């Protein structure tokens, strides 16, 4: 018998949500030259049973979902996490006033999965 769950709607399934990070909001605007901010996104939502292909589930998530169905108190549902990220470049001043261009990997969430 599966455990009782609240109804799952499409809107609360695991997927990327829009998040714009502005460097002025974190007080970094005086040393970061560009960009002034970027669309970073984040993952949020549920990974319910049954896990569909759209939810980018790992084999581990499938088995965790099974165990969760049997023991909802002891085992949580799989987490909604980034599965594909892309880099961005940041142009900034270092402490000696040199201009630096650095490539940072894994800065933008493109896809989420369970």
């Amino acid at each position, binding site marked *: 018998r599966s455990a009782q769950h609240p109804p799952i709607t499409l809107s609360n399934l695991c997927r990327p949500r829009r998040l714009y990070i502005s460097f002025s909001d974190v007080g970094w605007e005086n040393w970061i030259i560009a960009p002034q901010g970027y669309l970073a996104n984040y993952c949020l939502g549920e990974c319910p049973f049954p896990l569909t292909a759209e939810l980018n589930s790992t084999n581990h998530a499938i088995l965790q979902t099974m165990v969760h169905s049997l023991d909802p108190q002891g085992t949580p549902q799989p987490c909604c996490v980034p599965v594909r990220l*892309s880099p961005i470049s940041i142009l900034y001043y*270092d402490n000696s006033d040199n201009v630096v261009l650095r490539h940072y990997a894994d800065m933008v969430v493109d896809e989420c999965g369970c």
Partner: protein
Amino acid sequence: LSLQESLLLKSLGLSAKPSPKTPIPVPPVLWRIFQRRKTQPSMNKEPVDACRVEEFDVPGDIIRVFTDQGHFIPKGQPQGQLCLRKRLYFNLSMLEEDENVTMAQLEIKFHHNSYHTSSQGQIFELRLSQPSQVSLQGMPEPRQKLLVEQSFAQLHKSLLFNLSMVARDWRMHNRNLGLVLEVAVSGGDEVNELQGLCTSIDSFLDTSLLVVTLSQQCQVSRRRR
């Protein structure tokens, strides 16, 4: 918050939060690369190698442009038509311990961006040397290793030199005595004209060092791949 912030900055490869005092304009080469990368994802769906600088075809994820902190050296005794002697010094101490230099390119730029009207037959001779020890005032000039010797006909745009080996040497031995740049002029018949060319050259000289490095983060991810 400041502790949390410094931990986050450290994760991003920065030892402290920078606070620029006299910010310089962004070098055009960095601005061009930044703009190209910004537009790349929408045009090209291929995954971008974050650990390679395509523009220079070298491994690396950090590009810095160092401004020259050297000073002009008095010419001393007249030596032919020596126009200028200048110490070039680039403070590479900002590089983190775990960064590997994959490319260093010296740019000598002449702001006089048009052909000199009277430079007919005259040739400038450029010499770039690496001193092996500190020079003391009033003492004979110490031995120098000649790195580059090049002639150029006109004061035009800029000259580029590959100094990757030199920059690696500075890092490896933790000893950076800078470089010595000499520009002389030869050719032509009019001594006054040659001197005229000479006196103006130092007023529009600008030097910078572009350095590409591969950070620890990239070295780990490359090994994993």
